[in-house]
């Protein structure tokens, strides 16, 4: 229960951090994918149920706070989450290199899906160079974001009071 509350609270704080972080003009004006990193963190660390709750909560906040229609995160985050969740037992999920690779791939995949949705629905103009810049930028920013989110959440979860197991129960 405490971990679930921490998950909801953590994702809300993640949304606020992403809102208030400045955009990076060098990467086409995108922001560090903090909410995608939360979705990935819970996909790598939780049971399917926990993963789906985190993924939908993060996606709902992302698309709800963004302009345009619902969709980019609601489609991208479940795909990222499902893919990461499938391989989580075969990798060392808390390894820095693993997280950097997953962060980069997650950020790039989320950006690619957003580009496709925005282009197909005509919500944003498409420029090949700009799209490439954004995909690469998402990879770089995702690479830096997931390890930080992971570190913060691991620390916070470790300081949560543990449930005591009594021998006679």
């Amino acid at each position: 229960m405490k971990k679930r509350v921490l998950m909801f609270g953590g994702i809300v704080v993640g949304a606020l951090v992403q809102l208030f972080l400045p955009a990076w003009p060098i990467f086409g004006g995108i922001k560090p994918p903090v909410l995608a990193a939360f979705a990935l963190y819970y996909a790598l660390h939780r049971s399917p149920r926990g993963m789906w709750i985190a993924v939908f909560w993060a996606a709902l906040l992302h698309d709800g706070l963004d302009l345009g229609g619902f969709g980019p995160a609601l489609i991208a985050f479940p795909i990222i989450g499902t893919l990461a969740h499938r391989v989580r037992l075969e990798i060392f999920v808390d390894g820095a290199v693993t997280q950097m690779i997953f962060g980069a791939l997650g950020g790039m995949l989320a950006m690619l899906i957003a580009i496709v949705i925005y282009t197909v629905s005509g919500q944003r103009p498409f420029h090949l160079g700009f799209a490439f810049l954004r995909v690469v930028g998402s990879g770089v920013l995702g690479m830096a974001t997931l390890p930080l989110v992971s570190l913060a959440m691991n620390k916070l979860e470790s300081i949560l009071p543990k449930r005591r197991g009594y021998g006679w129960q």
Partner: protein
Amino acid sequence: MIFRNRKLVYTAAAGLLLVVAFVLPSSLSLKGKGAVRGVMAPAERGTSGLGQRLSEAVSAIRGIGGAVEENRELSHELVRLQAELNKLGDVEIENLRLRRALDFHQSQALAMIPCDVISRNISGWWNAVRIGKGRADGIEENHAVISPDGLVGKTIEVSKHTSEVLLVSDPSFRVSAKIERANSFGLLRGEGANLKGQPMARIDFIDKDAEIRIGDDVVTSGLSGEGGVFPKGVQIGRVVKVHQNDSGLFQYAEIAPRATVSLLDYVFIVSTSSPKESP
């Protein structure tokens, strides 16, 4: 039983998501977004307020305490005076017949609703900011948003307590503009930001014979429709480059918008209606 068939569940979920992404009516989508934004608005306001207080504290420590409030009042006064000045300029330039024609327009009282910027856009895909006032405060869609520096953008996606402001630099922003010195009209649209992060815009369909110079001021023409409120003569920016259209029929000019918005700023919404009284 049906939930045990994983393939069916995944297909249904994927179908549902695609429906949500592409088919959901905008009114329904806006209602959902309004709910999410309503829940998050207090947190955004709190975080933004914290940032503001920190900034004010730093200013106070630097020995200019008290100047923040004064600055806010002066900014409001400056916007009002600029509006007055624009009106006076028009009076000098326009002849009696035009003034008579505009009497009806001028007789409409334009209220300015001051608002705090509470957050930026979450993804960076849109050049937009969120303000902490909405429909309950008398704000409608497509109303001009101005600051002491000039036109900031226009309101879109207005929910009960928050509104999104599409900035002048966003590629989907359009407003009818006038190059003041040349008295030439055109359609201004956003061009995003350059690699230095500076907002850019461009004004299309300028008369090919008009003499446009670098540094010319660009203001709103007051002709924009869409059921919105765009007062005449609000500064937008200045011309930085002039080009000839490929067809040779028009000119277009690159514009550097004057007003840039940060999280610590407050802006004014131009409105014809006064805030609704709460029951």
